[in-house]
Every structure is written in structure tokens, then in C-alpha cells.
């Protein structure tokens, strides 16, 4: 036994030495940057384009490597906050304002002005995604807007007219019922659905209700308008069966991450429409040529769409500051934007590239003509970024909203109870956070005072200065309704 112990010890030492020496070393001549993002052909194409751009611009060469192990924010957070984060990181959704708040992301306001990727270079509506308190913390990698993709073949198959570009909730319901009746004769094994989901936040916004109030100090989801929307969602899922419930959705898809199956159901006709961004083309194109159209999601009232950018930030403790900031500059450059147009990974961050012929009518894909224009128009005109409050961690918001909606759909709660529970839970969360963080409490108290002023003015029917409103939705809504004070010209 002792012999085998010693033998295994020797073997292990040998193996470890081998492993250690065969780790591909960093080339010491040029700096190596790590970019936390997803590893797929598009990102690799971006990396190649970046290297090429550096060469073309006669800038010092750099090696950019992709680090693909970010399932959730956990790793980014733990490593970043302990000082060993990666140089460049993708910031998805709520991370875009969470991470800078922790101090982990570099403030690049000055560099942006100097190198040419200031906020003005991209869509104005995207600013909340990478501008916090007036400082810039990154730049968008693309602009994403979600609309309803229509598989024209599916509609034609069941002889149901296609929806118009702009439609109301009642029209949606009517057309949806007509569709599922035509597409699901009795005895059918696999049910055909009208759409995979409806965007609850956008529907609420249509009625003038956002997740929070104007200063993001209170969660407003306990409002009766939310009850209306939730009730509709419940009815459409459980009674009219226009959309699959979570369980039915699970039955249709077996994947944890990504929606590979959603697209296969779209192409095979089990979903007549899917609500997803323009990046769907990346997945749809290899699967065949489908006659596609894109229409707005149905909504009542104020038309709005969900605009989001995948923004990229630089780690505050990076050892390659200059080179990492160059990458942000690259994102505003022509080669990168043309690449995005070509691979259809969302809309290019610089708006003018979304007006090119190549984008609007790609020569290789005539079956898509018209969809790109719809997305570009939505991003420009109706897109609003999601409502986030500095007092609620968005991961908690997302979890609470999703779980409570699921509980409602599985029949455990009514719509009214769900709305109330959402409001209660999230407001409790706000209370907990400001209780803990003195700086946050100060901010909260200031904002509450402003909120009272806003409420007073609204009650009196007087206009409100735009500077008072923090929430991007309310800003757009007020502007559309004419409730804002005319802005002073500088």
C-alpha cells in the first residue's frame, strides 16, 4: 500500500508539472485583455475585427481573449469586487447600473469625449444604460429592441389575417382567439399557440404605469392598472390559451439558457409570433428562409417598446487601462458597426448605420425586408429602456415579479392579490435597503421630497420640470402628454 501511495504521488507530481508548463503562456510582447462575454462566432468575429481595426489605425497591437464563464453575475461580482476581475466585461440589463454603483466599473467620461464615443454617438434613449449620475461607464455593443416576429407562412397556413403594425389589446385578443381556434382542431396532440409571451412591462407602460413612480422611490405595481394587465395575461394563458403557461412552456423547451427551442417552434409553426429582439435573425437565418414580418406588440394607450443595449464596461482595476478603453472606442467605429449590420446581432450602436441600405434591405435576405426598418423605427421612436430603481436590486425585482406572476398563472393567487403582493414585497425591499445604506437613504429622502413636489404639480395640472423625473418611462410619457415644462435653451 505504501508503494502504491508513493507511486501515485510521483505520478501526480509529474502530471502537475506537465499541466503547469503547458498552460499557454501569455505573449509577453503584447498585452492580453480578457473580455467577459459569450463565446460564439459573432463575438469571435468582433475580436478579429478589433485586432484588424487596431492594425488599420496604426494603434499598438493587443490580444483580446474571450472569457465565457459567466452564467450569472456571481462570478463577475465575486471576482470583480475582490480585485481580480477581467479587463472588459459585458453588462447585461440590471448589471449596467449595479456594477458601476459598486465602484467596479471605470468612469470613462473624459476618455469618451477625447476618443470619440460620447453618449451622443448612440441612441439617446439608451443613455440610462451606461450613464449613471451624469458619468459615462461604458458604451453599448448593440441596441436591442423587441418586437413580435411574424411567421407569415404560419398565418397563411391557417388562413388567418396577419396583424397590423399597430394594434390594441382587444384586437390582439380577437385575432389570437381566431388563430388558435383555426390552428387547433379538436384532438390535436401538440397545441399551437399564438405568441410565446406578451411583454408585461410594456403593456403596463401603455396604460401609463411603470414599475416605479417618477423618482423611482416607490414600487407602483399595486396599482389597479397592473391588475388589469395581470388579469388579461391570466385569461390569455389559462382560458384562451393564446400563450403557454410556464409548465406548458417547459414542456416545449428543455433548455436552461437561451431559447433555442423557442425558435424551432417558431419556424415549425407552433408559435405564430415570437416576442424577441432583432438578434433572432442570427438563429433564424441558418434554419432556412422564412417569410418574416415584424409588428409592434399589441398595446393600449401609449405605444412603447423595450429598448436595451448590451453595454460594455471596463474594469476599474484593470492593468491595461488604455487598451481596454480603446475597445470602447472601437465600438463606435465604422468597422464594428458594419459588422453588427452584417451579422444582425441587434441594431448597431451608432444609429446612422441603421439607416443604410445594407441594414434595411440586406441583399442576401429579401425575405426579411421590412423587418429591419420596423426595428430601426422602434428603436428610434418608441424605445424606452427598462425602469430601474437605485433602491431595488434589479435581480430581486425580476425574481419577485416573475415568481408572483407564475404563482398567479398556476392558480394560486388572483390578479389583484398578485399585484398587491408585488407592491408590498418590493416596497419592503426598498425599506430594507435604505435602512442599511446611509448614502442611499439620503438619496431617497431627497427624491421623496421631489416626488411630493411632482405630485403637487400634477394634482394642480401644472407642468413639471424634466430634471425632476428620474425614470426614463415617465420622462417619455410626460413629454408625450405635454406635461413637461418647456426646457430652457442653454
Amino acid at each position, binding site marked *: 500500500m505504501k508503494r502504491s501511495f508513493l507511486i501515485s504521488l510521483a505520478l501526480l507530481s509529474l502530471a502537475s508539472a506537465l499541466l503547469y508548463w503547458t498552460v499557454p503562456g501569455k505573449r509577453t510582447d503584447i498585452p492580453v485583455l480578457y473580455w467577459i462575454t459569450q463565446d460564439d462566432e459573432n463575438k469571435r468575429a468582433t475580436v478579429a475585427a478589433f485586432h484588424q481595426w487596431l492594425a488599420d489605425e496604426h494603434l499598438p497591437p493587443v490580444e483580446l481573449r474571450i472569457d465565457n*464563464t459567466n452564467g450569472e453575475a456571481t462570478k463577475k461580482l465575486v471576482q470583480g469586487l475582490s480585485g481580480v476581475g477581467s479587463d472588459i466585461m459585458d453588462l447585461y440589463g440590471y448589471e449596467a447600473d449595479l456594477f458601476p454603483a459598486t465602484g467596479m466599473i471605470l468612469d470613462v467620461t473624459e476618455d469618451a469625449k477625447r476618443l470619440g464615443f460620447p453618449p451622443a454617438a448612440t441612441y439617446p434613449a439608451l443613455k440610462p444604460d451606461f450613464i449613471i449620475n451624469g458619468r459615462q461607464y461604458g458604451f453599448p455593443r448593440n441596441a436591442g429592441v423587441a418586437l413580435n416576429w411574424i411567421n407569415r407562412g404560419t398565418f397563411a397556413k391557417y388562413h388567418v389575417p396577419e396583424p397590423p403594425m399597430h394594434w390594441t389589446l382587444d384586437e390582439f385578443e380577437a385575432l389570437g382567439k381566431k388563430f388558435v381556434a383555426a390552428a387547433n382542431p379538436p384532438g390535436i396532440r401538440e397545441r399551437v399557440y399564438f405568441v410565446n409571451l406578451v411583454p408585461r412591462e410594456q403593456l403596463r407602460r401603455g396604460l401609463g404605469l411603470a414599475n416605479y413612480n417618477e423618482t423611482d422611490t416607490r414600487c407602483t405595481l399595486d396599482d389597479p392598472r397592473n391588475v388589469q394587465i395581470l388579469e388579461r395575461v391570466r385569461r390569455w394563458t389559462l382560458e384562451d390559451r393564446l400563450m403557454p403557461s410556464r409548465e406548458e412552456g417547459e414542456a416545449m423547451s428543455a433548455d436552461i439558457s437561451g431559447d433555442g427551442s423557442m425558435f424551432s417552434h417558431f419556424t415549425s409553426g407552433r408559435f405564430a409570433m415570437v416576442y424577441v429582439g432583432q438578434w433572432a435573425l442570427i438563429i433564424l437565418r441558418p434554419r432556412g428562409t422564412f417569410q418574416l414580418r415584424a409588428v409592434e406588440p399589441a398595446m393600449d394607450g401609449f405605444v412603447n417598446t423595450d429598448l436595451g443595449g448590451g453595454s460594455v464596461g471596463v474594469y476599474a482595476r484593470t492593468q491595461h487601462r488604455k487598451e481596454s478603453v480603446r475597445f470602447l472606442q472601437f465600438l463606435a467605429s465604422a468597422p464594428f458597426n458594419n459588422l453588427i449590420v452584417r451579422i444582425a446581432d441587434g441594431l448597431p450602436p451608432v444609429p446612422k448605420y441603421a439607416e443604410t441600405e445594407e441594414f434595411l434591405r440586406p441583399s442576401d435576405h429579401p425575405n426579411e425586408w421590412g423587418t429591419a426598418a420596423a426595428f430601426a423605427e422602434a428603436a428610434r421612436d418608441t424605445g424606452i429602456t427598462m425602469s430601474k430603481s437605485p433602491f431595488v436590486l434589479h435581480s430581486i425585482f425580476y425574481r419577485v415579479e416573475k415568481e408572483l406572476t407564475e404563482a398567479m398563472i398556476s392558480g394560486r393567487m388572483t390578479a389583484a392579490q398578485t399585484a398587491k403582493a408585488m407592491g408590498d414585497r418590493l416596497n419592503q425591499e426598498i425599506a430594507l435597503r435604505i435602512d442599511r445604506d446611509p448614502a442611499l437613504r439620503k438619496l431617497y429622502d431627497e427624491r421623496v421630497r421631489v416626488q411630493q413636489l411632482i405630485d403637487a404639480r400634477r394634482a394642480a395640472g401644472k407642468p413639471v420640470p424634466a430634471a425632476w423625473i428620474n425614470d426614463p418611462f415617465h420622462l417619455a410619457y410626460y413629454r408625450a402628454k405635454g406635461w413637461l415644462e418647456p426646457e430652457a435653451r442653454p
Partner: protein
Amino acid sequence: MAETQTPFRKKTVITAERSGPGLSLVLAALSLLMIAPFVWMALTSFKTLSESSDPEWMPGAFRWSNYPEVFKVIPFLRFAANSLVMAGWVTILQVFTSALAAFSFARLEWPGRDRVFFLYLGTMMLPGLVTLIPTFQLMVRLDLVDTYLGLVLPAAFGAFGTFLLRQFMMGIPRALDEAAEIDGASKWQIFWDVILPLSRPGLVTLAIFTFMGNFQSFFWPLVMMKTVDKFPLPVGLMFFDTQHGQATHLLMAAVTMSVIPLIIIFVLLQKQLIRGIQLGGVKG
């Protein structure tokens, strides 16, 4: 006590009279049940992506090409080698240090012994998650992040091995060590020449447990490692989660392949286990 025991419901205990081909059949049936998920996994590794979400067990055509494709998507051999070497080191360290410590707890008498043992035991009762961030920050300070050493060290010293070996050692009759002590053996000699060989079943058992457990560890390496080439296999499997969904068929192929070295190691260690038990001759 001649009281009759009432029939007691438990999992099937085959009686001696009924064994024979019956027992073999039961075992074969049970093992089929146990490996059924694996059969599914192996079969799925030959399917296409869309087939892998079907309820149908058999693939339409056996796509052997999935296996080479795994090597294209991830550096499988490297990940497997990382896992094997890391788990190997942790095992050796654990077994060795735990044996020493268990000897101290099981055989030696010193003031405060039982209290320290309770401390050991107590540390196992706290969920490892909350100590992860402090441990990680400790690693940062020691500059061991993204190193192989940093992966091995925190896992190599745990209370579990000590507890297990202590139980084993307590089952060895003291008559043997007392005899050796009378012969003038020092404590180290008693440990090395008497107790250690007799605890072979325990040692091998601990080795198996530690190796298997460490091979599967996912969360700690996820947080610790940054260089892709140093990832162990469970973390490496994450590469199959792409933006377009999970490449199930490739994932299953990778997992099937990863099971093979483990089976080999287990079979080898198993032989040791049996030999040790047979040579034990503990009771006398």
C-alpha cells in the same frame, strides 16, 4: 429475549435460501434501473440537437461525429486532465493528513481532545457557501487566485476525512496497539506499522469519496479560475451553454466521455478496497 419480532418493512433483503439465479436477476434488474438514466445519456450523445429534446430514446441515426465535435468545442482532454490531477492531489493530501489526525483523535489521549474533535465536527455544519467569499478574499491576498494551488488547498483539509477515519480506527481492537507498545514501539511506529495497514478499507474508502467528490466540484473552481486552460471539467461543461441554447447532444457526449476515467479509477481502487478488507483480519 425470546420475544417475537414482527415483520419489519424494509427494502428487499434477499434471504439466503432464495439466493441463486434469483438474486442475480434482481441485481441485474436493479442495476438496469440505476443505469437507465445513463443509457439515455449515452443514447442522446448520438442524437442531433433537435432529437435530444424528443422523448424518443433511440436516435434516428447514430451520429458518431458528435464525439470529435466535443473536442472542437472545448479542450476536453485538458479539462479532464485538470480535474484528474486536482482531484488526485486533494485526495492524497486529505487521506494523509486525515489519517494522522484521526489517529490522534482515536488513539491518543490528550487534554482537550474531545473538545477539539467537536470543533472539527462543528465546522462541517456550516454551509460552505457563506465561507466562500471570505475564503476567496483570503486567496486574493495570498495571490492564489487562478492558480492550481488555490484550487487544491482549501479542499484538501477538511473535517470529513478525519471523522470518517476516526470511526474506522475506533473499530480496530486496542489489543494490537497495546501489544506493540509493550514491545517498545513509539507512537509513530504504532501508527505507521499497525494502525495504518489495518485501516486500509477506511483509507481507500476515503480516497474514493474524496476523489469523486472533488472531481465533481463546480462552484469553487468557477469562482476561482479565470484562465480557461485551467478549468476543471464541470466548469468546462458550461461552454455548451451558448446563446442559442444548450447543445445537449454534445454535452451528453462530453459527460459520457468523462465518466470513463472515473470508472477505471474506481475499479482499480475497488480492488484495493477488497484486498484490504480481506487481509484485514481485524477481529480475532
